[in-house]
């Protein structure tokens, strides 16, 4: 029992953090934001809860998923989105537009703001390291300048754009999302939306009559005619600015179709009245503007009842995604991986067994949460786990963590735990940075839309990537440990060698079979097995490199040290195939181009090459005798 105490304490802390993070997602306010955030709308080709819209929009504007209110307290994104949708004037005062580029600040003559970083640090990190947040009100006078500059930048190809131009484009996109969100639920030209709908319903017959009479060449009421035309213009603008679709309907064949809020006008003109859903939305908007929490909550319930009347799956599906958002499984798992790594370090310094056991159980807990997160994503989008670069990062980490857990189970030498926690954390960190562009649960482009091949070729090859990365990490730890510490002896170095060999075999199997399956997919779809596309070539490099490692080992050309150094070079090959090939921006697989990532990629390659160079130091200078 005593042996298990560290593990129990570690798991308790971890799950306590998990629970507290979950409870933080619902703000304790009179307005029930959580209920409102569950409401499904349609954006990016799929139905999703408003909570997801809020998180992704805020992330793409502010690069964070929460805001700070006036008192400096953190509030979830849905609080901000509700305000922006219903009372944009209040939202316009919030400083949420992140502007890093100094040239933009000077061009727009934005006031300098106190930064949290001090001036010395900014000078050291170079221009662009200080970021300042501005409100829509502060940016409003410069909107024209921004759109002119963005237009110029938009005419260039991405590779030719300067840092300033890229930043301007991003800002322009953020502003466009922001302004269109502010006119999605209501155009904001009148104070009460419900009143407006009632007036419209009352006026519709007269307006239609005036238009018809004029068309027929009869006498008509000019006031009524002008009024209906003005309403038409207003709603035309409302239609164009709307960001997401909020009014669902179900056809007889059972398919959903969605429309923007602006179609409420044609509803009234055609049927004489607005739909239930539209009316409930109108009441919610009014209640928010009147600061009446009770009516707001009541009307949200009414809206949900209306949506349930259309189809119960609307709210139940958005509820699943809301739960996924609230759990934040990948964030929680990455926190857990850090805890596990700390436990491993402690186990290396003192009390090996117990702390290593704590790390083991933490990694298992993280792997479970990691898996749950992936299952949620698969359920929501209805596809195999890897559909884009973001999800490949999640999956590479997941595969490597499971393999590392398997190693730990067998070898019990803490290396499985160490690599699982390092890879788990780093891949989730990469995924986090890849998600900054917004919704990662994106619809699949036509060319990829095939669940069978996504499930086989893509998952198998990604597992091959996982294993290659894992082998490289074990090699990395081995070289550093045996060079700088005396913890490694002949026996443990043999264990390392067996681990790396086993993982390289696994990598060989999965990357080879995955690559050939990709070729067969290509033949099925395009009548050719191999097209020398960069991503195909990248996968081929991994296969060849793993084959070289295995043959060099079988031929006796390398022993433990050489195998380790070669496995580390596998990291370089892996990073090239995974990210480098996407940076070339050519071919059928060029679905995720990122420029900033190039610096990180180069740094990753440099670090690995440095450790390979260290491995070349003659072993007599090593602290461990291997």
């Amino acid at each position, binding site marked *: 029992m005593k042996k298990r105490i560290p593990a129990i304490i570690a798991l308790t802390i971890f799950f306590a953090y998990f629970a507290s993070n979950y409870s933080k997602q619902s703000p304790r306010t009179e307005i029930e934001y959580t209920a409102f955030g569950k409401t499904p709308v*349609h*954006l*990016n*080709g*799929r139905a999703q809860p408003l909570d997801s819209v809020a998180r992704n929009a805020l992330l793409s504007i502010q690069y964070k998923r929460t805001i700070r209110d006036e008192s400096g307290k953190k509030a979830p994104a849905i609080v901000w989105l509700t305000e922006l949708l219903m009372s944009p004037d209040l939202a316009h005062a919030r400083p949420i537009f992140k502007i890093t580029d100094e040239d933009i600040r000077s061009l727009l003559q934005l006031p300098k703001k106190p930064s949290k970083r001090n001036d010395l640090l900014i000078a050291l990190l170079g221009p662009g390291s200080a970021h300042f947040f501005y409100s829509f009100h502060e940016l409003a006078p410069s909107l024209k300048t921004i759109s002119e500059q963005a237009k110029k930048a938009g005419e260039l190809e991405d590779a030719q754009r300067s840092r300033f131009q890229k930043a301007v484009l991003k800002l322009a996109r953020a502003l466009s999302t922001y302004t269109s969100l502010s006119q999605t639920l209501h155009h904001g030209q009148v104070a009460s939306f419900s009143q407006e709908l009632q007036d419209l319903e009352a006026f519709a017959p007269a307006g239609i009559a005036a238009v018809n009479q004029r068309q027929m060449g009869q006498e008509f009421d000019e006031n009524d005619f002008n009024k209906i035309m003005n309403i038409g213009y207003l709603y035309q603008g409302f239609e164009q600015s709307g960001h*997401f*679709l909020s009014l669902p309907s179900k056809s007889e064949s059972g398919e959903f*179709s*969605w429309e923007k809020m602006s179609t409420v006008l044609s509803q009234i003109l055609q049927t004489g009245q607005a739909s239930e859903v539209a009316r409930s939305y109108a009441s919610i908007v009014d209640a928010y503007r009147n600061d009446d929490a009770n009516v707001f909550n009541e009307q949200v319930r009414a809206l949900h009842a209306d949506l349930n009347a259309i189809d119960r799956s609307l709210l139940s599906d958005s509820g699943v995604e809301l739960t996924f958002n609230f759990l934040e499984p990948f964030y929680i798992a990455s926190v857990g991986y850090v805890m596990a790594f700390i436990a491993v370090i402690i186990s290396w310094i003192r009390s090996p067994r117990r702390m290593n056991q704590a790390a083991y159980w933490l990694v298992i807990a993280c792997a479970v949460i990691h898996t749950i997160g992936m299952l949620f994503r698969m359920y929501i989008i209805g596809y195999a786990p890897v559909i884009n670069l973001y999800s490949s990062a999640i999956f590479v980490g997941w595969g490597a963590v499971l393999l590392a857990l398997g190693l730990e189970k*067998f070898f019990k030498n803490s290396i499985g735990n160490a690599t699982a926690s390092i890879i788990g954390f780093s891949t989730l960190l990469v995924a986090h940075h890849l998600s900054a562009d917004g919704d990662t649960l*994106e*619809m699949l*482009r*036509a*060319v990829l*839309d*095939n669940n069978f*091949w996504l499930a086989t070729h893509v998952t198998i090859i990604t597992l091959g990537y996982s294993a290659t990365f894992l082998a490289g990490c074990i090699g990395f730890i081995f070289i550093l440990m045996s060079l700088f510490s005396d913890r490694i002896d002949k026996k443990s170095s043999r264990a390392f060698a*067996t681990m790396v060999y*086993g993982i390289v*075999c*696994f990598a*060989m*199997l999965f990357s*080879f*079979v995955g690559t*050939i*399956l990709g*070729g*067969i997919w290509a*033949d*099925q*779809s*395009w*009548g*050719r*097995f*191999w*097209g*020398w*596309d*960069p991503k195909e*070539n*990248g996968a*081929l*490099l991994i296969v*060849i*490199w793993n*084959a*070289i490692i295995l*043959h*060099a080992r*079988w*031929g006796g*050309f390398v022993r433990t040290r050489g195998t380790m150094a070669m496995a580390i070079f596998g990291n370089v090959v892996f990073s*090239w195939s995974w990210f480098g*090939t996407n940076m*070339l921006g*050519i*071919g059928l697989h060029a679905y995720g181009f990122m420029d900033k990532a190039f610096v990180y990629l180069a740094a990753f390659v440099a670090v690995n090459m440095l450790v390979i160079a260290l491995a070349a130091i003659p072993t007599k200078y090593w602290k461990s005798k291997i």
Partner: protein
Amino acid sequence: MKPFIKFFSSLELAIACMVLGLVLVFVGTLDQVHLGIHGATERYFYSFFVMWEIPNSEVAIPYLPGGYTVGTTLLINLITALFTRFRFSWKKAGVLMIHFGVISLLIGELVSSMMQVDSNMAIDEGATKNYSEDRTISELVIIDHSHSTTTDRVYAFPKAMLKTNHDVRHEDLPFSISINQFMTNSVIRKRDENTPSKSLIANKDIGLDYYAIETPKTGKMDEINRNTANLTIFDSEGNVAGTWLASLAFPLQRFSFEGKDYSLQIRNKRYYHPFEIKLIDFSFDRYLGTNIPMNYSSMIELTNYDTGENREFLIYMNHPLRYSGLTFFQSSFTPDELTTILQVVSNPGRHLPYISCILIFAGLSFQFGFGLITFIGKRLKRS
């Protein structure tokens, strides 16, 4: 003979080939940014040596073995090793399967690289075509319209024959053609007061109003090399019949020679098929409320003259039409969404990788599974 076999069957050679392959694939992928996928493939993978052209000279020196050299050497190495060094045992059955799989993969790719033919078929809605075009190969065609009442006779001169200051002729044609200038890629401009004086004059048809300026060759997938030639036609006595500007960008230019009707054009190489394809409808579906493509599809009608077969078929993403050894897949379309572009691939080696896949999957699973089970067994015994 013995040292020879020893060298070709050695593991060192296998590793050397793999390392060279690794370097080659990496460098070739990088160069795709400049040459395009097609250009880089020709230069690095479907070649015996990768040549470095010394700038401002005609001299090129090899600096890397090309894909053919590396692949063939590896193939020889695998086969000799299997015959000389390999001793069969059940334990090694997996290894044998893997290497046979690799051999069939290499042969498959070799066959594809030599025999695979890619071409394009662009069809307008409602229109019918019985040929596909190779966008990377062009030819100068002279069409004899008075050959017979029902058919024209086409004389095609491949691009390789079209060189500046070279003559081309065909024994059945009553005239010879002198290429005054050939440009692999060019832009076409309308003649005006700014026309450079060095641009060659043409005195017939389109060449009266337009001229061409040479531009650098491109290998990018979405760009084409606009081949253009300034050419003069001479009769058998050496008298000039006229000078034309022919270009991939121009339609047919008609002319008459000694009372007979001809036309000339530079166009993409055509492959005629014994069947025709009519595009009934092209559609491009997007996800609701977005511009993300959900599906592209072409509804076509296929008619075979020989067999009288007639059927409709829907070609869409991941669902090509396979007919008489050809694969037709949805490749592209024009911005007005009224013309579909189908890629037509003929690849006699396409079945080999299926065999490789089965062999390699079974072999690797057997070999590593065997290793894993032995390893776990040992562990369990020890504990």
